């Protein structure tokens, strides 16, 4: 812990002056940064806090900061736990009673220590006893009551499958474009560059026709394949492979290696950093993809997480407790990957200008 403290409070050395005094600009800088933490993390933190609230707790206005749930007590003679209330009696004392049932403006209540005697109390005389409790049932029920695990599985299949296919076909093409001279090479490269900025949203109708013809409507293949030949990936890998010296390939050929073996045993291992960057991008693209899966997948057993989540928020309009829990589960994998590979991702983006 002390190491963390030292890290957070250290001041970067100027090199010339050593420790400086705080100036007005410093105050503004750190004010901006702290506001930044609140604005960037606050909404996510609020989502996570809210996802642990019970349905009743979520409907309150103004909302409570922490997840609170009404405390209950087991009372002899009653099968279910009864909700506890603090009740102000006529003589001014406050006692803690459990509510048996509510009839109009009256509540029938019972002292948990003396279960025999029923007390009638006006409902405005009681306030619920609430304790901090995480409503983990929001999460468990998301799995048991909805197709959430199916969506999760579909998303994992799409993300992993598409990334593997993208890596292999992009790297093969990049290998040919960077290491061979052949007729049509420049034409192919130019066409690929020209489509760098063409998003699928511009060609929705004809791609839909192609997918229909192939029979991939409501098939995960229809989501995986169309985006697999990314121009970005080919471009990124080609530029990187150009820096691999041809002599390495020639020495492989002298040793009698086939072209395929040169590709996978010499070139691919050397291009690992560029492949890693592309892999990270591909995972983010595919995990977060929305518009195209929305069009191709119309039956709920094929939904990916993003499409499923969107369908939920449409259907379960009032059931925010499930929607919030599922949203947290959807952002969890990306958050874990990000915290592990944070430097990889940020330096990769800064040096390539490719967007996640």
């Amino acid at each position, binding site marked *: 812990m002390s190491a963390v403290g030292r890290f957070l409070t250290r001041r970067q050395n100027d090199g010339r002056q050593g420790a400086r005094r705080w100036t007005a600009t410093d105050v503004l800088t750190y004010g901006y940064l702290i506001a930044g933490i609140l604005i*960037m993390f606050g909404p996510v933190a609020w989502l996570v806090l809210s996802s642990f609230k019970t349905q009743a707790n979520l409907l309150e206005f103004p909302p409570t900061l922490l997840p609170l749930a009404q405390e209950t007590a087991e009372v002899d003679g009653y099968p279910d736990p009864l909700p506890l209330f603090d009740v102000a009696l006529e003589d001014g004392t406050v006692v803690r009673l459990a509510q048996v049932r509510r009839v109009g403006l009256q509540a029938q209540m019972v002292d948990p220590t003396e279960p025999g005697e029923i007390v009638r109390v006006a409902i405005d005389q009681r306030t619920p006893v609430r304790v901090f409790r995480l409503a983990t049932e929001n999460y468990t029920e998301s799995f048991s009551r909805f197709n959430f695990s199916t969506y999760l599985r579909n998303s994992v299949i799409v993300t992993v499958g598409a990334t593997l296919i993208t890596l292999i076909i992009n790297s093969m*093409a990049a290998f040919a474009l960077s290491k061979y001279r052949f007729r049509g090479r420049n034409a192919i490269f130019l066409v690929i560059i020209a489509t760098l900025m063409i998003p699928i949203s511009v060609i*929705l109708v004809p791609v839909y026709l192609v997918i229909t013809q192939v029979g991939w409507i409501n098939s995960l293949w229809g989501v995986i394949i169309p985006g697999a030949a990314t121009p970005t990936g080919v471009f990124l890998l080609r530029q990187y492979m150009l820096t691999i010296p041809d002599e390495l390939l020639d020495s492989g050929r002298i040793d009698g290696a086939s072209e395929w073996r040169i590709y996978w045993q010499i070139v691919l291992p050397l291009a690992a950093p560029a492949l890693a960057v592309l892999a990270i991008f591909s995972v983010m693209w595919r995990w977060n993809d929305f518009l195209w899966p929305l069009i191709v997948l119309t039956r709920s057993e094929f939904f990916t997480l993003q499409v499923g989540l969107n369908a939920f928020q449409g259907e379960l309009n009032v059931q925010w407790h499930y929607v919030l829990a599922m*949203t947290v589960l959807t952002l969890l994998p990306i958050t874990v990957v990000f915290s592990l590979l944070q430097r990889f991702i940020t330096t990769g983006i800064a*040096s390539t200008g490719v*967007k996640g």
Partner: protein
Amino acid sequence: MATTPNAVQRLNALAGDGVQRLYALAMNALGLIMEPAQKLLGVRRMAYLFVLPNLLVFGIFILFPMLLNVYYAMTEGGNLYPQDRPFVATANFERLYTCTDYGDPNTCLEDRFWRAARNTGVFVFFQVSGMVIISLITSMVLNRKIVARGFFRSVYFYPVLLSPVVVALIWKWILQRDGVLNAILVGVGLDPINFMLDGTWAMTWVILVSIWAHMGFYTLILLAGLQSIPAELYDAGAIDGTSTTQAFRHITLPLLMPTMMVVLVLSLIRAVQMFDEVFVLTGGGPGSATMLMVQYIYMTGFGTQNPRFGMAAAASVTLGAVLLVATLLQLRLGQGSERHLA
């Protein structure tokens, strides 16, 4: 490339051996096709075999659809198959562009298209200018000598990784009528606002939320640009008695300009195509106040019982033309973008 060695090393040690064996197995299996092919074709023609898979997917799912899209735009009706679609030449485009008064979408034959175009224009203008200004300020703050710079950099970057659906739901929950933002408004004595039922508020939030979600990306690019400005220039300026504002105007801004142009064009291209966040957050509403161009295309072709593929294709050809202009603009801006893509 700077990496976090312990996390990556641990993963490597854990999975390394198994992954390597699996890799060799898969590649040897593919070699059963590729090696006989080399005997058949010869070394020189292997290049075609290597580009073939990518080229096939690219041709079938990108290139061919691009051409077909133009044909779709010239046909009409609800049939998907091109042979069942009557050819109408430019009728779709004529319908799309017919207005008695171009300032008022209600006078247009295809009023939803013009509403979407106007919304997209408003969205692009405010989102891109807001994005550039906020990213510039943030990158300059991050470029100062601050503690825990890596941490703060990732704070601003984190939302970039969130899926658009997640981003939209996070904010939908905050902005709803009984949400936390209204609770804060009531707390300071103001009236609650039903943000999603007011066109201006909905558009404002759509713009703010998309800036929130993507600014980290542009901040990173600008930060890289700032860090490539040699410190000697500022030192030389300091000797000459240059003030901070002068240094910003005469050193930072001119040298950052190529990077700024990249950010401008990239964010422009992204803003023109915006769909996911807005669709989930507002559904285009209230009414059609936040319906953007891609949503119009989606709704016209897919989100309805009577799909009008021809109209959707005509609108997407229009969108494609706008994107093409933006892309050419980026290529013209040359050097800056090359440095970034290389």
